[in-house]
C-alpha cells in the first residue's frame, strides 16, 4: 500500500476540541491514481498536510510508502517529504526570482544531495525539454514565464527527486482549458511512466475521467459529517 491510514484523528493545537479529520480506515494501493474532490473546508488540505508530513496526526497511524510518519521526528519528516513526495499546488509552486534550473536544483538540494551535480543538471534539462520549456527560458526568473509554463516546471520540480508519491492540490485551477488538457496528459503519462502513486485534489469533476478511482472526501473523512 502506498498510503494506509488507520483511526486517524486530527485537531489543531489551538482548537483541541474540534476534530478536523477523522479517518477510520483508508488506503491507496501503489501506482493507483486517485481523484479526491470535496467542498472547501472539508479537511482537504489537512489530509494532504498529514500525508506529506507537514502535520502530525493527533492520534492514529499514518503510513506512507511503508513509513509510519506519525513515528518520525519533525526533521525526519521534512527529509522524507523531500525524498519521496512530490507536491504541486494551484499556484506559487516556484520561487519567483529564481530561474527554472535553480528552482529545480533547490528542490534536489533538500533531498540530501547524494546525486552528482552534473547528473542532476542533465536530468533537469531532459525533464524541461520533455515539458516543452524552450532552453531560452531556462535562465529567466520564473516570474517572467507564463502560468502554463510555470505549472509544467512545477511538475518537473516535483519529479526531480524521483518521488514515489505525487500530491497535486488543484494544480489546474489557474490554467485555461488548452493548458489544462496539456498539463493533465503530461502529468498522467509521467505518473504512468515512473510508476508513481498519484493523489489529485480538485473540484473540477470534468477531470475525473483521467483517474482509476474517484473518492469524495466526505467518504474518507467522517469528521465533516458529524459537524
Amino acid at each position: 500500500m502506498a498510503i494506509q491510514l488507520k483511526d486517524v484523528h486530527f485537531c489543531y493545537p489551538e482548537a483541541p476540541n474540534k476534530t478536523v479529520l477523522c479517518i477510520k480506515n483508508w488506503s491507496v494501493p501503489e501506482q493507483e491514481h486517485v481523484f479526491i474532490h470535496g467542498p472547501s473546508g472539508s479537511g482537504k488540505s489537512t489530509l494532504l498536510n498529514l500525508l506529506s508530513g507537514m502535520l502530525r496526526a493527533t492520534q492514529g497511524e499514518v503510513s506512507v510508502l511503508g513509513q509510519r510518519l506519525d513515528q518520525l521526528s519533525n526533521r525526519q519528516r521534512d527529509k522524507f517529504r523531500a525524498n519521496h513526495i512530490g507536491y504541486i499546488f494551484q499556484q506559487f509552486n516556484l520561487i519567483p526570482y529564481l530561474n527554472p534550473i535553480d528552482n529545480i536544483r533547490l528542490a534536489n538540494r533538500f533531498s540530501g544531495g547524494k546525486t552528482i551535480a552534473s547528473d542532476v543538471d542533465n536530468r533537469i534539462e531532459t525533464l524541461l525539454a520533455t515539458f516543452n520549456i524552450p532552453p531560452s527560458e531556462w535562465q529567466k526568473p520564473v516570474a517572467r514565464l507564463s502560468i502554463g509554463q510555470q505549472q509544467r516546471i512545477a511538475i518537473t520540480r516535483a519529479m526531480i527527486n524521483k518521488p514515489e508519491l505525487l500530491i497535486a492540490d488543484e494544480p489546474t485551477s489557474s490554467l485555461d482549458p488548452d493548458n489544462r488538457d496539456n498539463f493533465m496528459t503530461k502529468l498522467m503519462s509521467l505518473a504512468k511512466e515512473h510508476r508513481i502513486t498519484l493523489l489529485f485534489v480538485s473540484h473540477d469533476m470534468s477531470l475525473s475521467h483521467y483517474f482509476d478511482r474517484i473518492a469524495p472526501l466526505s467518504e474518507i473523512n467522517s469528521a465533516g459529517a458529524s459537524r
Partner: protein
Amino acid sequence: MFIRLASKSLLNRKGSVLLTLMAMSVSIFVLLGVEHIRHQTKDSFNSTVSGVDLIVGARTGSLNLLLYSVFRIGSPTNNIGWETYQAVASNSKVAWSVPIALGDSHKGYRVMGTTSDYFKHFRYGQKRQLEFSAGQQFSGIFDVVLGSEVARKLGYTLGDPLVLAHGIAKTSFSLHDDMPFKVVGILETTGTPVDQTLHVSLQGIEAIHLNWQQGVKLPGRRVDREQLNPQALEPESITAFMLGLSSRMATFRVQRDINNYAREPLSAILPGVALSELWQMMGLLENTLRLIAGLILIAALLGLSAMMLASIREREHEIHLLRVIGAPPLYLFLLIELEAILIALTSIILGLSGLYICLLTAGDFLASSFGLHIGTNIFSGDNTVFLLLIIGATIIAAMIPSFSAYRNAKASL
C-alpha cells in the same frame, strides 16, 4: 545554492534593500571614520615631541606650558630670565638644553628663537630627528629656517628675504621691516607644529628688538646691521626651554628642584604626561563622537531588521514552498540571517571604500588646513575588531525577522 537563494532574493527586492544598504554603509563609514581619525590624531598628537625629558617655563599650568611651547597655541604667561636658564642648564644632571623665545610671527606663522642645539636634540614621532629638505641650519643673526608648510604655503625658497612681525596676530601692523631675514634652510615635513614654525637664532630675536621698548618701536633709533656683534646680543629673557637629562631616573628630582627654584617661579613638566592630560581632556569629545557613531549604527541595524521583518510577510508563499520541498524551519531562520549578513558585508565593503576614497582625496586638505596627517591604512587591528562587532550586531538584529520566518515556517500549512 543557499547563498545564491539569499542573494537572488535580495536582488529581487532591490528598492528596500538598496536603501537599507545605504543606511548601513553610511553608518559604517561614520563609525570607522571616527575611529580611524581618532587613532591617527592621537598618534600624530603624541608624536609632536619625543626625547625631551622636561619642558620648563614661567610658573603656569602644565597644559598651558605644553600648548604654547610645543603646539604654539595660546601665549606664554611670563618670560624667564636668561640667568635662570643658565643656572638650570648647568645642573650636572642636564645633558642638553634648548632655549625657546616666542612672541613674533610672520603672516600668521609663529617665529621661534632658539639655538642650533634645537636641530641637534629636538625629536618627534619615534625619536626622529629634524631633517632639512633644502639648505642648512641658521648660522648668521638674520638667517631663518622654515618649517615645510611655511615654505610651501608662502612659496619661499632658499635665499628669499622675509620680514618678521611683532606679536602673534595674523595681521600685524608693527613689522620689524628694518631688519629682513634670509631663508637659509627648509625642514622636511614632520606632521607636527614644527611645519608651521619659522626658526631663527636667539640673537636674531634680540637684534630685531634692539630699538624697541615695551612692545613699541622707538622712532628715530636705527640700528646698523653691520655693527651688530653676535656675542653682544645675549638675550635677557626667553620664553621656555627644553631639557634632556643624562639619566631618566633623575627626571622627578630635577623637576622638583626646578619647581622649587627660589629666585624665580618656574614650572617643569614632563611632555608625555602633559600630552596624555591634554588627550584626556579631549576624551569627552572623543567618546561623544564614538557614542553618536554607535547610535547611528544601531539605527541602521534597526532599519535593516524592520525591512527584513516586513519582507517576511510578503514571502509567506515562498516560505511555505520551501517547507513543502523539504526545508526545515531552521533553514528559513538561517536564510534570513544570511540575507542580513550579506547586506552587512556589502555595506562594510561600500563603507570602507568610501572612507578610503575620502581619506585619499581629503588627506592633503586635512594636512594643509589642520596639520592633521591621516594615513590611509584603515585596516588597523582595532578596525578588524569593529568589523567583527558589526557582523555580530547584524546577526543579533536579524534575530527578530529570522525568528519570525522560523515561526512562520513552523506554522506554514
